[in-house]
């Protein structure tokens, strides 16, 4: 069933001053009831985008439509949205109850309705009995939950959450991710959340959008993006991947053969360009690679020497080195092996991805984007 689009962004351009292009013709749509995660490294423009949608930042070109209506010149307080900012921004002069009630009061609800909804919202975030407290008396995690309650209580068409999990510790993050999903499906409205942590994007999102230096790299379900990244950037930013560089030699339907440093590899290509003769990248996820003795079982096989391993708890990551001195990482259950042993590493065509470009904009150094300058 195709659902109605609640938010549409068309060719959005935002400059900071004359030098920094924060949003470079960003276009996408968000369906009603979606849990939409914007993921990208810091400085990729995701927060800017969120602020434009919220109406607290002006953009230079393009337009934003909420519920089909253009938001050009519509001030923040007239939009059917609510924002949970990165640093919670609770009003220090109001008790928790008044903080949460703020949006409802501004919308002119009557007091019995406000009391009912505020209590419900506080219950949802697990903060009943905190009504009379002041923001300064709460821990970071509690403040954050108040901030969420304050945003969900107005039941907006679009709920915007800017890096909601970046200031809570790992264990609480896991719990909050769970809570977010439950809350969102209970409320049924549209959530747009930004994050720079791939785990959060993958596990919470129904739709995910990868951004890089103000452009959309890829939009899709977490599975689509993880299994079939379109660019090297998307592949690198969401999850780990082994990369090889080479030239496409043949292409039929969705299968593409690439001549790389380690030999010819066959992988999947989902785009519609003719890649033959072009420089491409080839990627395979560490957990898709199998360690075997026999080179014929899989579509692709590479011989490599074991050089090290990292213990991950449930899995072990083995590092291999090919004779061309290229690293290949493999994640698997523990095997019997010794450093220096040579193995055959194999994987099938559908587990390898042929990546057409390094990123959507030419000339961007993705190492710099991912790891910082």
């Amino acid at each position: 069933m195709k659902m109605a689009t609640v938010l549409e962004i068309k060719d959005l351009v935002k400059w900071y001053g004359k030098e920094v292009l924060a949003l470079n013709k960003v276009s996408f749509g968000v369906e009603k009831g979606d849990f939409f995660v914007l993921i990208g490294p810091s400085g990729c423009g995701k927060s800017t985008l969120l602020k434009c949608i919220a109406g607290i930042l002006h953009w230079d070109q393009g337009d934003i439509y909420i519920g089909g209506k253009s938001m050009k010149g519509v001030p923040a307080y007239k939009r059917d949205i609510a924002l949970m900012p990165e640093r919670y921004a609770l009003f220090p002069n109001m008790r928790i109850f008044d903080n949460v009630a703020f949006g409802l009061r501004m919308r002119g609800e009557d007091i019995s309705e406000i009391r009912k909804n505020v209590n419900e919202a506080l219950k949802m975030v697990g903060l009943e009995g905190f009504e009379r407290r002041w923001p300064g008396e709460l821990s970071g995690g509690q403040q954050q939950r108040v901030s969420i309650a304050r945003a969900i209580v107005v039941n907006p068409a679009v709920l915007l959450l800017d890096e909601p999990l970046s200031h809570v510790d790992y264990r609480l993050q896991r719990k909050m991710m769970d809570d977010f999903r439950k809350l969102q499906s209970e409320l049924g409205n549209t959530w747009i959340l930004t994050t720079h942590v791939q785990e959060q994007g993958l596990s919470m999102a129904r739709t995910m959008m990868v951004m890089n230096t103000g452009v959309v790299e890829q939009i899709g379900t977490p599975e689509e993006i993880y299994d079939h990244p379109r660019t090297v950037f998307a592949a690198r930013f969401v999850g780990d991947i082994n990369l090889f560089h080479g030239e496409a030699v043949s292409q039929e339907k969705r299968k593409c053969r690439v001549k790389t440093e380690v030999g010819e590899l066959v992988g999947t290509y989902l785009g519609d360009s003719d890649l033959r003769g072009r420089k491409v990248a080839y990627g395979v996820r560490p957990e898709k690679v199998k360690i075997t003795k026999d080179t014929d079982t899989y579509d692709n096989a590479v011989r490599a020497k074991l050089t090290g391993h990292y213990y991950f708890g449930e899995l072990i990551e083995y590092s291999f080195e090919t004779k061309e001195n290229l690293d290949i990482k493999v994640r698997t259950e523990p095997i019997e092996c010794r450093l220096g042993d040579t193995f055959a590493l194999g994987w099938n065509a559908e587990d390898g991805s042929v990546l057409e470009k390094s990123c959507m904009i030419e000339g961007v150094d993705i190492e710099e984007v991912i790891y910082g300058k």
Partner: protein
Amino acid sequence: MVSDVGDLPEKTSIREFLARHSSYMLMLPPLIAFILFMIIPTAMVLLLSFNAGGQVTFDPTQITIENYIKMLTRQTTYILIRDTFGMSLLSTIVTLIVAYPVAYFLAFKVESFRFQNILLFLLIVPYWVDWSIRSISWLSILGSDGVVNYLLLSLGWIKEPIGELLFTRWTLLIIWAQTNMLFMLFPIYLALIKIDPELLAVAQALGASPSRTFYHITFKLSLPGVIVGSVFVFVSTIGDYVTPALWAGGLQTLGLTVQNYAWLFQWPVASTFAVLMLIVTLTILYVMLKTVNIKRVFYE
């Protein structure tokens, strides 16, 4: 035997005592100054108000409450109280109305911090000029051949210069607003620049119009500054008896009354009025500070 808790010292020498409490010793000089120049004089005023006649030192054998009875049974005392505190409150409000928009403009509309500082500096410059000269300069503005009258005359709106621009209660309000403006402006400015702009953005994203955002967030968070500024202005106008004497055209205030009696060497009566002034002022300040819980509004 080894004790678990450590031995308690049995005797403390003076040297040890001093070493232990040395940080308190730092408070000693200001404490002495405070007692010498604040507590003792105030106590003397208080004591003297219970004497009668023309004496200048306290005489414990002649304690009387005659001064208080006289003062409180005279109608004029209440007119004095009304005029004194009424004018001070009014001038506090006028100063607030003038200073708030300026502070707001500086804090929110002037984006560069450097430029904010330059503007603040320019606001301070007139205060380098002596107070009396600053207030006399109003002669050339409001006087009968001053700027205002000249302007009105040359526009043909009036036929003769208006003499009432000077030496009325309004003159006093204008001059007080000008001389005390900075004491109101600075605390408000400091409260405003502490406000996280994100709070304002969030308020709007939650549905608050700019005017309601201003009232519920900006103004309420600037209240500590407003209160502190108001206290400054209120207290300094209460204590100021020279400006009313010079400019207010015969307005009698408590401060002037104290001064008059003191000049006539009626120190006990002057003290009685001084005590009255002190009590009313402290009461008003208490109410002002009670209305806003300053600690609450400042971030915990």
